[in-house]
């Protein structure tokens, strides 16, 4: 192998390898540049790097080849991928150039630079390649180690320092300092109050400035579903009590009317029962107006008729309604 490396021309095997893998490397490099998604760029770059590692090996830089794979492809590229994920994997930046003339200039410079570079290499007479055979005689790693710890020891130390600094620097940069202490409950409530002052922007969805904690959904212990708005003292529904998402989706189940309807039904039956008993209607009469004033069937009607939607809902699903209501025996009785 060393003899082969000493030669000024390479073996056909290496030549084949070079041409194949070289093409791969170039394609990888190009796709690194041209892919719209950062992830793809990263992956293709990793590919290129692996190819390069192979080339290192082929050039007798065994240690470097390994390091290339382990450190670069293994660590650095992974780091890249992490960051890409962090920044947003879906973010595909458009290749549309915003700077005027930038693209042409870049291509021009690139071509010119490349051509010049190649020209430079070309007219440098690189005829005799006295390969790395002798240098690697004592083993590649040993040779490197010897150099690093003798000739390049200072550089080595300094790179060490550099790495530490880099680590610290990375921490400093990414560490986010909490600028203000956590809010106590008292402060939170105060904030709410402050936000609730009429004239202040109201919390989204609620029709009025909200000072108190938002009411809980599932009213009267008959409903405990999150999609059922709590009732307010005047019988209207408090949409705030429903989760904002559900609110957005319009999945609110309004059952406020049904309770009244049920009550009205109950009283009718109770009235019938009295008339069958022929008891003195005085008390009935006495209680009736109050009851009628309190729960008027019209009141129920008012709930029903406008919100036929809600009514239909309740009409459609008596079963689960009952299940939800937790009056299973009654429902079963019906």
């Amino acid at each position, binding site marked *: 192998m060393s003899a082969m490396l000493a030669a000024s021309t390479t073996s056909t095997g290496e030549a084949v390898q070079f041409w194949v893998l070289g093409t791969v490397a170039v394609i990888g490099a190009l796709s690194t540049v041209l892919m719209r998604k950062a992830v793809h760029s990263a992956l293709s770059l990793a590919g290129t790097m692996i190819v390069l590692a192979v080339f290192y090996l082929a050039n007798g830089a065994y240690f470097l080849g390994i390091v290339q794979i382990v450190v670069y492809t293994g660590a650095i590229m992974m780091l890249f991928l992490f960051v890409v994920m962090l920044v947003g994997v879906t973010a595909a930046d458009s290749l549309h150039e915003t*700077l005027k003339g930038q693209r042409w*200039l870049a291509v021009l410079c*690139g071509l*010119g*630079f490349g051509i010049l570079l190649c*020209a430079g290499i070309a007219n440098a007479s690189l005829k005799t390649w006295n390969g790395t055979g002798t240098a690697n005689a004592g083993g590649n790693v040993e040779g490197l180690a010897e150099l690093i710890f003798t000739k390049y020891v200072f550089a080595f130390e300094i790179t060490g320092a550099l790495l530490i600094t880099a680590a610290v620097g990375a921490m400093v940069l990414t560490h986010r300092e909490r600028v203000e202490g956590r809010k106590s409950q008292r402060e939170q409530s105060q904030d709410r109050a402050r936000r609730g002052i009429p004239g202040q922007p109201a919390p989204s969805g609620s029709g009025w400035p909200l000072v108190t904690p938002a009411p809980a959904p599932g009213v009267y212990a008959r409903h405990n579903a999150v999609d059922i708005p709590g009732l307010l003292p005047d019988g209207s529904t408090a949409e705030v009590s429903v989760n904002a998402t559900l609110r957005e989706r319009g999945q609110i189940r309004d059952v406020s009317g049904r309770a009244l309807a049920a009550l009205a039904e109950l009283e009718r039956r109770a009235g019938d029962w009295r008339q069958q008993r022929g008891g003195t209607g005085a008390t009935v009469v006495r209680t009736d107006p109050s009851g009628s004033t309190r729960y008027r069937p019209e009141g129920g009607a008012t709930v029903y008729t406008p919100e036929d939607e809600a009514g239909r809902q309740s009409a459609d699903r008596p079963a689960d309604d009952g299940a939800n209501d937790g009056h299973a025996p009654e429902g079963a009785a019906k």
Partner: protein
Amino acid sequence: MENLIGLLVAAPLLGAAVLLCGGRALDRVGHWLGTALAGVSFLIGAVLFADMLGEETSDRALHSHLFSWIPVGGFRADVGFQLDQLSMTFVLLITGVGTLIHIYSIGYMEHDERRRRFFGYLNLFLAAMLLLVLADNYLLLYVGWEGVGLASYLLIGFWQHKPSAATAAKKAFIVNRVGDVGLSIAIMLMFTTFGTFAFAPVLSEADRAGEGKLTAIGLMLLLAACGKSAQVPLQSWLGDAMEGPTPVSALIHAATMVTAGVYLITRSGAIFNAAPDAQTAVVTVGAVTLLFGAIVGCAKDDIKKALAGSTMSQIGYMILAAGLGPIGYVFAIMHLVTHGFFKAGLFLGAGSVMHAMNDEVDMRKYGGLRRYMPITFATFGLGYLAIIGFPGLSGFWSKDKIIEAAFAKGGTEGWILGAATLLGAAITAYYMTRVMLLTFFGEKRWQPAPDPHKTAGIEPGAEAHPGELPHPHESPKSMTIPMIVLAFGSVFAGGLFSLNDAFVNWLEPVTGHDHGDSPLSAATVTAGTMVVLVVGVALAWAQYGRRPVPVTAPRGSALTRAARRDLLQDDFNHVVLVKPGEYLTRGLDRVDHTLVDGAVNGAAASVGGLSGRLRKLQNGYARTYAVSMFGGAAVLIAATLLMRAV
């Protein structure tokens, strides 16, 4: 004796200094002081004259070197006075007439609150004029030359609140400046030619220089003379100069200053003698001017302007004579002196008339004054006879000689000049008779005094009550006496001079003299002069004596109308010089703002714009900078490769 010469100048100069710097305290005595100092210098002049007569003809000239004036490198100008017969003549004329006019002014300016300053200016003029004629080098003469210009500026514009006066003064000074350019260039030429400009060396060795140089010098001197002596083409200022008080017109613009040109040419005779072309130019100018002035004089109704025209033409005579060379110098000076007498007398008479007529200057509004102001009439009449060359009077002697000399020039040139002078004589007779008739004869054509705003109205003693006929009266003694004296001068001076050629012999050592070969005998010339004289007078009589004169001037022929406008000289100047000048200056001013300054501002603006454009390259996009970096790297590689290749 030499030191007296200095005093001659110093006396009036002192007077000027005292009167101008001294405060109002001097207002009471100012005029007396001024007159006294003028008299002093006249006395000194007389003493020197007597002394000079005592000397031998050969060494009559005095010289007094005062101090070295401008010693710079090879350029040496000294302050030195030279008093020879020529200067002497002028000294006597200047101081004599000057003193008389001082006396006259005492009465004339009586009611002017700035009389002190007036006398200061008069003294200043005397000093400058004496400096002019006494200087022993051209540069000092130049000082006097400009000095009289200044004095005339101040005196013409004495009534500065009259815009017309101020304008006239400015015009006079500037036109004179044009002439001064000629004088200064002449001096420079002398310096480059002879290395000096003192009379003695320059004149004694004039002929050693080439004729070309001398012609140039001569023409430049002629230009100067034209400016100062109101000769064509620089004559336009004299008419307007009549805005000044009449004594000023008499002294400066008739008797003395305007004759400085004649002095200059006569003094520089040596140069002109050696430069025939220059002489031709001189005589041409003289001839043209003498006709020009005479024609203008015929048309003017303003008495002073008419006299101004006559002055112009008389000086034309002198210049012409001086241009004739040695034949004419003496007679030029002689006519200058006699003219000094009678023209001063005429002006003083005119002043006296205006004084009496509420400062009316229009002769058509005079008439029949002889009965009311006999002395004025008499003196004016004598002056009139003298100027038209009535036999026996001063003018006769001097002018006749000039006409002879003109013929004596010989050749066609001689004939032309002679004819011109004769024609001039005829016209002179005509317009002077016209003045005489319009003013003193005929019926009264007096007009009620106009309100002072329109006319001069500022002339002192003019208690002009608007709407009231003037009541002419004879002027006070202080005014009549000088007129009488001058009248005597204008009667006898000529004859006195001509007694066995006294004047010729007197001046000959300085100017030289020779009798040209005249194709006509003196008698013939005299006869001819008489004839044209009679013709002129008769014409004037026919026109103004026999039939009554209209108060408003008739439209008159084209020539008359042109002559009333000074033969369109001002229109000419206006079209040729003034208007283009205005456009030029305004244009240049605009150019200065737009082009010259604009170029600078434009440069500044362009720099600003460029930097603003370059600033755009710094668009803040890291990638743009990266491109330039990358391109730079490429260029570097290219450079290295090229270096390797080369």
